[in-house]
């Protein structure tokens, strides 16, 4: 879906979220701890939210939110982000977007 890919490329780190989703909040907190300020897009507040949800699932996200994009590429949901971080592979992806690294 164009809207999703467009929004995903708008900033280095983008999180598609829902305003009631606390797991999305947790993922955002993690990025903040790593010195990154993601753009958080609440799809439940978008009139095309349902379409976006379907698009995200089609792109391979098993839970529609949180859907994390880094450098315009889909990284995945909470599972993928956590695995990447513990294996030490998340920070290298974030290097360009950490203001004081």
């Amino acid at each position, binding site marked *: 879906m164009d809207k999703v890919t467009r929004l995903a490329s708008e900033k280095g780190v983008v999180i598609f979220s829902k305003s009631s989703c606390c797991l999305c909040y*947790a*993922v955002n907190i993690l990025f903040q701890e790593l010195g990154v300020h993601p753009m958080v897009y609440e799809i439940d507040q978008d009139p095309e939210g349902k379409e976006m949800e379907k698009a995200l699932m089609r792109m391979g996200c098993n839970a529609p939110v949180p859907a994390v994009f880094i450098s315009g590429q889909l990284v995945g949901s909470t599972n993928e982000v956590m695995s990447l971080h513990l294996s030490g592979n998340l920070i290298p992806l974030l290097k360009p977007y950490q203001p004081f690294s």
Partner: protein
Amino acid sequence: MSTWVENFKSNGNPNTSAPIIVEVDTRLDNQVQRILLMDRKDLSANTNKKQIQRRLAQNREAARKSRLRKKAYVQQLETSRLKLVQLEQELDRARQQGLYVGSGVEGVHMGFSGTDSAWFTAFEMEYGHWLEEQSRQICELRNALQAHIGDVELRILVDAGMSHYFELFRMKTTAAKADVFYVMSGMWKTPAERFFFWIGGFRPSELLKVLVPQLEPLTEQQLIDVCNLRQSCQQAEDALSQGMDKLQQTLAETVAAGQLAEVGYNPRTGTAMDKLEALVSFVSQADHLRQETLQQMSRILTTRQAARGLLALGEYFLRLRALSSLWANRPREPT
């Protein structure tokens, strides 16, 4: 024909109503009565006698078979009774080990259907078996390390140990979907273990704190990797903890606003029921973090170090459980 046979065949459940012995006797009486009421004009003295004797023989046979069936049924009752006693003993043993087995806190089971509490007991039994296997594996690891067996055989033990933990996470996923509060309460664990509980299990950062001192000496690279793992683990844990705090906060808000279920739905915060669904995801993420931590450690360490690590971890939890027993059985001052 015979009530004995019907009840015997239906199911071995001792809870079904017992057949009444009296029925057999009345049938015998009926048969005797039938002989006496037979149409006299059909009978000559001889055939009458033969028929009576035949009938009496049949009655004796029927009574004999009836007695055999009764004996078999009673034996079956005895076996069931013994089994019941055995099950009660197992439950008592589990209670003594500090495992919660549904006594006392009856509130947890209020409103559950029969199938729900059956699942509950089944999980505890499965967990009991998991613990037994864990003990066995720890002994095997200890012996293997003392005997200085080769890396190839040690690797098999390490892989088995890791798989065993992953098996627990799988069990917990199923349990969390059935009753997330149960998993989060930690009532299936001993009190001392429960003290350290974090979202349905042990803290991954705690795991590393227990393991690392047991693993020295580590190489330069290993030290760096372990340090990085500790940091990322802590960060992930903090993020999930803050997410949980937010969940608690918004749950309180929705309950205060009376938004329990679909009625009065506020799309911004969702309903209280939605929040509780989210709890399942949190437990899942916490277990995922535990699994990833174990896997990363396994990647960083040599086979021998991983074996020592698994042994240290297993012994740590064993001691926590022993502590729970000690505490439960401590001499108390008379009140």
